[in-house]
């Protein structure tokens, strides 16, 4: 349905944000995981037709959307990482304006806006100017606008920023529901956001696609390479110098560490079951001074 083929984006000054990425997306949720500056947002903006790629193609149902962006825009729900709204409009007026921009008829947009305001629990505040909304409430308006036209493709960039824990859970459930028959592309650097909903995960760093697979496939990368050990504070520094450390807790007995390494980091180290955070760290931060501990 949505294809990104050998997409590259160079910014002024020669910075390459996206470096030859290829992805094919069908119904389901793709979680895009990567550190800040990995190129996630650039890739999302390219997929959302906001940024033109320096080279490569973006196809939607076989149509080149770099040349004809409206082919995708009519079926797209996009929630950017940062956005504002006209502060003097109410939520209902704002959504009505955006529905008109989408080309939706008055009758259907009126009904859908009412339903969407109910979905994000803003009906009570629908007559309040957006300038008086908190960041979290504005984020909910953003979610509502992304769903205005019942999109076939949903692209959400760091969507849970500014949402409280309860709202995060609700939003993730909604995304999972949407992903049943739509393309959902979700980017985040919060591993738990992806872990709970995405059936397909892509890890990116430095503008490149490092790995893509199901959570199970990615976990297999780290199997037998995650260790837990208890060391003295003095030894902890040495371990940290030589390995990728995914967690470290100071306790009364010493420092409990979780280490990613091909071989046991010490004789006392015991193997541990990997989780996605271990995989992510192993892929994104292979330790420079150590031959092992990275999965690239």
């Amino acid at each position, binding site marked *: 349905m949505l294809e990104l083929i050998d997409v590259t984006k160079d910014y002024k000054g020669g910075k390459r944000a996206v470096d030859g990425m290829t992805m094919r997306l069908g119904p389901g949720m793709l979680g895009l995981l990567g550190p800040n500056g990995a190129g996630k947002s650039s890739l999302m903006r390219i997929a959302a037709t*906001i*940024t*033109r790629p320096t080279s490569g193609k973006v196809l939607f149902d076989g149509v080149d959307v770099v040349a004809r962006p409206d082919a995708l825009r009519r079926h797209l729900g996009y929630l950017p*990482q940062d*956005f*504002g709204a006209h502060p003097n409009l109410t939520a209902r007026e704002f959504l009505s304006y955006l529905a008109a921009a*989408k080309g939706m*008829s*008055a009758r259907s*947009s009126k009904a859908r806006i009412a339903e969407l305001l109910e979905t994000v629990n803003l009906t009570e505040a629908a007559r309040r100017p957006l300038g008086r909304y908190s960041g979290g409430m504005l984020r909910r308006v953003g979610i509502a606008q992304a769903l205005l036209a019942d999109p076939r493709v949903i692209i959400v960039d760091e969507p849970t920023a500014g949402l409280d824990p309860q709202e995060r859970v609700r939003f993730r459930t909604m995304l999972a529901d949407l992903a049943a028959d739509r393309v959902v592309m979700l980017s985040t650097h919060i591993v738990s956001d992806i872990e709970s909903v995405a059936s397909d995960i892509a890890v990116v760093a430095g503008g490149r696609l490092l790995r893509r697979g199901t959570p199970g496939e990615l976990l297999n990368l780290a199997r037998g390479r995650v260790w837990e050990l208890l060391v003295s504070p003095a030894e902890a520094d040495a371990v940290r110098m030589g390995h990728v450390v995914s967690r470290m807790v100071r306790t009364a007995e010493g420092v409990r560490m979780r280490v990613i390494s091909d071989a046991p980091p010490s004789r006392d180290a015991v193997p541990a079951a990997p989780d996605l955070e271990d995989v992510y760290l192993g892929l994104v931060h292979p330790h420079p001074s150590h031959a092992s501990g990275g999965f690239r």
Partner: protein
Amino acid sequence: MLQTIGGTALGDFRDRVRRPVYAVTLLAAVVLGYLAVPDAQARFVILNIGGYRGVYDSAYVGTATALAAALWLTLGGFYVVRGAIEHDERTGVGRLVAATPLRTPAYLAAKFLSNVMVLGSMVGVLAATAAVMQFTRAEDRAIDPIALLTPFVVIALPMVAATAAAALLFETLPLLRGGIGNVGWFFVWLTVAVGGLSARAPVDVLGAQHVIRAFRATMTEQGIWKRHSSFSLGLTQEPEPLKSFPWGGLPLTAEFLGGRALLVVAALLVALLPALWFTRFDPARGGFRLTPRQTPATEPELPPAPAYRGLPATPPAYGNTFGRLLAGELTIIVREATAWWWLGAAILAAVGLAVPSGSVAPVALPLAWVWPVLLWSKLGTRHQSDGMESLIGAYPAPHRRLLAEWTAGLAVTALLGLTPLVRMAASGDTPGMTAWLGGALLIPSLALAAGTLTRTPRLFQALYPALWYCAFNGLAPLDFMGAVRDGDTPAGPHPLAVTALAGSLLALTLLTASARGSALLTRHA
């Protein structure tokens, strides 16, 4: 302390010179330098002393270019350096600075110094251009650095300091912080800089009176100063090329130098004055204007729904939505207008009905068509200023949105000009009505083009009052609305030409949006 101020100012200056707009301002300085020393046969002049100009030696070229800089940099430079504090607020740097030991006067002094450095660099480019122009015009190729540069130091730089201070002062005053300040500065400039050219002006802010006296003394010695000789500084077209005379250079009297030094001291005091009320980006103390996203909620947060209950059941349907887009754009504009604005509009409408028919086009219409300048100036900039570019960029048919925005601007223009139009129709003033139509089409086109090209309302806020002032004061070639009359007919450009210009500006806007549309957010890399 001085080291802190210098370091802060230098950091600010570096940040500004790395923005693309800085290169444009330097280019503008080069163009101004070129215009200040026109070809001997040119009919357009910046400086005219009773039909004469000085021979193009270092003293005259330096003085003429410095005067042009003092006049035009005071106007344009204000808009160039305006926004130093707003930039700190927008980027969040202000809050970081507010948490450091840097005192408010030191912060303001640094901002003032940074403003001076930006404008001073333009003066530097002008001085270099002046040297090149003197050499190119080849009337006297011997470049005397002292004679060339002294006028820049004593005439242009004090005005630069005054402009830098005024920009800072305006930014810290809530009323003058936005569009009112931008429009207001044109009239301040008109009064202080242009009015200062008059021999009856109480204070010689520009330094031009001293220069005029020096010119007059030399010309009197040479017997070419006539009783009715006049002086003009600006950009005018003359019936024939100016004659030249050798000029000795700018006399540096103690009185003149003292006046210039006093101007610099006054500028510094004006720059530091806001320390009395500047709240260091603290919203709790009614601090600097916050962007919409950062506006604290003034009403209670609504809790999320207890559970997710599924997606909306109504399927979307599509149709013609231009009318609703237009309604949305009009709502956005109308909500920005305060009750006071509407009261003013109503009074102007009443004026349009009450004035004698001979005053409808020259008085009532121009007054009606300057009132919405701040609303027009937001055309093409609202999505940017409200932080909506990233959101709206993924919506289809951007041209349709732009056309809706333009039509909303046209509706405001037509509404404000309605009573003068009715009066013209009642008196059978068909040429006036045709000119009205041209003007009504041009204003939103100019506003939308300026806003789309620069993504800020500032260009239109600087440009339109100047254009309007020219038309209101009888300058027929720039009369876009039919205010200047030759008998019963408008003396300005033909309405078809105005309409063609409006169409070209609208086409330029649409082309700009197309070219830019796919790369809106490249700067957020």
